C-alpha cells in the first residue's frame, strides 16, 4: 500500500528486524529479501533465534523494531490470521479432531468459501501433493511422510505468498527424511511458491535451498547459495558450521596479500589464504581445512608441488561406507586431523598405525581472525 512496485520484487523482506526479550536480544538487525519462488533456508544451531524470526514472520511474535514486508506491504501490527503466509509446524499440528478433508479445508472454511468449492479445491490440492482420495481418512491413519504432505496441502490450498516451514522433517526417521528432502524441493518448484525453511540440519538446507542464511546469536552470518557457503564461507562460524572442517588455532608467521603462513599451537606449519581479513604477522587466526580437501598418498612425490605436505600416523578408522574418515596424528606436531577416505579402493587396506602422507592446497586452507 505504502510501497512502490520496486519493492515488490521480494515476496518477503526484512529490514533491520529486531526482537528483544527481557534483557536479551534474540534477533539482531536482520535484513534480507527473498525473491519470488525461492527456496530460502535459515540455518543455525538451536537457540540462534531462527524460530523467533520465523514466528515474527508468521505474526505470533511482534518485532521490537524494524520492518517486515510481504509482497511490499508492511506486516507490522497485522495478526497471523490476516497475513498472507502459512506455516507448517514442527510437529505439523494437524488437527486430530478432524478428518483430512476437514483439516485441509479449515482455512477455506474460515474465509467463507462455499462448501462445494471447498470440496473441489481440497481434492485438487490433495492430488497435487500425491494423495488423491484420502479426504475421508483420519490423521492417525497416515504415515509420517503422508502427514507431512497433508500439512503442506493444508497451507497451499490457501495459496499463500510465503510458506514457512519450522523444521518439519525433524521428527522423521533418516530414510524418510532423505526422501522428503527431495519431495519438498519438488513440491516447492511445482507450486512455485516462496518457501522459508528453518533447520539446524545443514544437509537439509544444502540439498533443498536456493538461498541459505546462516544464523548465529541472533544475527545473519552469511547469506548465499549452498556452494558459496561451502566453498567460500565469509566467517569462521560459517566455515565451521557448514560442512565438516578440521579447525586449528594458529599464529600468523608471514602474510603476503591474502596468502598467509601460520604456525599452529602444536607447531605445525600451514600455508593458507585469508579471504576476508587482512592478516599481519603475530595475528591469531582460526584455520579451517575440510576433511575431503585433504589428499592421501603412500609416497610423498605423488602430490607434486602441493603447499601443505605432512605425514601422519593412522589412529582410528571411522568406516561409514561412502562417508568414511580416518583420524590421524600429524607426525611432527602431534596435532590431530580428520581426513575423508576417497572411495577409489586405493586405501581400502589402510590400518591403524600405518604411516601416510597427507597434502592439501593453500586455497583450501581458510584463515579467519580469531575471536571475530
Amino acid at each position, binding site marked *: 500500500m505504502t510501497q512502490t512496485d520496486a519493492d515488490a520484487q521480494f515476496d518477503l523482506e526484512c529490514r533491520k528486524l529486531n526482537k528483544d526479550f527481557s534483557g536479551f536480544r534474540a534477533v539482531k538487525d536482520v535484513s534480507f529479501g527473498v525473491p519470488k519462488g525461492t527456496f530460502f533456508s535459515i540455518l543455525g544451531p538451536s537457540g540462534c533465534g531462527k524460530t523467533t524470526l520465523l514466528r515474527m514472520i508468521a505474526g505470533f511474535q511482534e518485532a521490537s523494531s524494524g520492518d517486515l514486508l510481504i509482497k511490499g506491504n508492511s506486516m507490522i501490527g497485522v495478526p497471523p490470521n490476516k497475513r498472507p503466509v502459512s506455516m507448517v509446524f514442527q510437529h505439523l499440528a494437524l*488437527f486430530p479432531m478432524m478428518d483430512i478433508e476437514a483439516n485441509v479445508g479449515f482455512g477455506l472454511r*474460515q474465509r467463507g468459501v462455499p462448501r462445494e468449492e471447498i470440496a473441489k479445491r481440497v481434492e485438487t490440492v490433495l492430488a497435487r501433493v500425491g494423495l488423491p482420495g484420502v479426504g475421508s481418512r483420519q490423521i492417525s491413519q497416515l504415515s509420517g511422510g503422508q502427514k507431512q504432505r497433508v500439512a503442506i496441502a493444508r497451507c497451499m490450498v490457501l495459496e499463500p505468498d510465503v510458506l514457512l516451514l519450522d523444521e518439519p522433517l525433524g521428527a522423521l526417521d533418516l530414510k524418510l527424511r532423505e526422501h522428503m528432502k527431495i519431495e519438498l524441493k519438488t513440491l516447492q518448484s511445482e507450486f512455485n511458491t516462496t518457501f522459508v525453511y528453518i533447520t539446524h540440519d545443514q544437509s537439509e538446507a544444502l540439498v533443498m535451498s536456493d538461498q541459505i542464511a546462516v544464523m548465529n546469536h541472533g544475527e545473519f552470518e552469511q547469506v548465499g547459495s549452498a556452494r558459496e557457503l561451502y566453498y567460500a564461507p565469509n566467517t569462521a562460524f560459517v566455515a565451521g558450521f557448514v560442512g565438516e572442517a578440521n579447525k586449528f588455532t594458529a599464529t600468523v608467521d608471514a602474510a603476503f596479500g591474502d596468502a598467509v603462513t601460520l604456525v599452529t599451537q602444536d607447531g605445525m606449519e600451514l600455508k593458507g589464504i585469508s579471504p576476508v581479513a587482512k592478516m599481519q604477522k603475530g595475528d591469531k587466526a582460526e584455520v579451517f581445512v575440510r576433511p575431503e580437501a585433504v589428499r592421501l598418498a603412500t609416497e610423498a612425490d605423488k602430490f607434486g608441488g602441493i603447499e601443505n605436505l605432512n605425514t601422519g600416523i593412522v589412529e582410528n578408522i571411522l568406516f561409514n561406507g561412502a562417508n568414511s574418515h580416518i583420524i590421524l596424528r600429524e607426525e611432527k606436531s602431534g596435532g590431530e586431523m580428520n581426513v575423508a577416505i576417497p572411495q577409489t579402493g586405493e586405501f581400502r587396506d589402510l590400518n591403524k598405525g600405518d604411516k601416510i602422507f597427507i597434502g592439501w592446497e593453500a586455497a583450501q586452507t581458510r584463515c579467519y581472525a580469531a575471536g571475530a
Partner: protein
Amino acid sequence: MTQAQSRLGLYLLMTPLMLWLLLLIIVPHIGMFLVSISVKTGVRQYVTGLGNYMVFFTEPLYWNTFARTAFMSIAATFLTLVVGFPVAYYIAKLTRGRTKTTLFLMCLIPFWVSELVRTFGWMILLRETGIFSSFLQYIGVLSGPVEFLYNDAAIMIGLVYTSMLFMVVPLVTTLDSLDDSYIEAAYDLGGNGISILREIIIPHAMPGIVSGCIVVFMLSLGNYLTPILLGGKDSLWFTGLIYSQFITRFNWELGSAFGFLLLGLSSAIVWAGLKLSRQSLTDTVGR
C-alpha cells in the same frame, strides 16, 4: 506355580473392592428394590407389586418435584460449564508454573471446609439482614432489606459453587493436553477466536466437558444440603422427598421406590447426554 501365586495375589487385591461393591452397593440396592416392590396392605402385611411406583405417577407433587429437580440439575450443570470453562482455560493455557499451581489450589481451598459450612457462608451473604442486602441499602440501590435466600436463584448459586471444582479439574486436564501449536496453526490458517473455540478447543476438550458434566449433574441431582438450606420450604428437591419418606414418615417402601426412580432418572439423562455429545463412557470417565 507362579501363575497360581499371581492369581491369588490378584484375588487378594480385589477382595476389598469386591467387598465394598457387594456390601455397600449391591446388597443395599437389592434390599431397597425388595422394599420398593412391597406394597403395605395392613399392619405388617405386604404384597408384592408396583403400587409404590404408581403413587409417584398419580401424585402430581412427586413427579413435578422430580421434573423440577432434573431440570434444575441440568441448568446447574450447564451454568457450571459456562462459568468453569473460561476459568479452566485460563489456568490451563494462559498461566505457567507457580501461578498455575496457585490458581489451581485456590479452586481447591473452599473444599477444605465442609459443605454445610460453605452453604452457611452463602446464607450469611444472602439473607435479609445479610451482607448483600445491607451493602445494597448502604449504597442506596435498595430502600429496605430484601431477602435473597429461599428462591431458585439461591439454589442455583449454591449448586454451581459446590460443583465448580468437579468441572474445573477435568477441564484443566484435557485443556492442558491440547498442544498450543493446534491453536496457533488454526490462527495461522485464518481462524478467529470463535471458530478456533468451536472447531479446535471444544472438540478436543469434549471428553473433559462430558466427564465434568456427568459428575456435576450427579452431584447436583443427589445434593441434599444445598437445595434444602438455600431453597427453604418452597423449593422442593427430590432428595428432600426421599428424606422425608424415610425419616419423617417412616414410609420406607415409597422412599425406596423414589430412590430407584432417581437412579433411573440420572442414568437416563447421562445416557442421553453421552448420545447427544457422541462420547462414550470409556472415553470420558475412563480416561
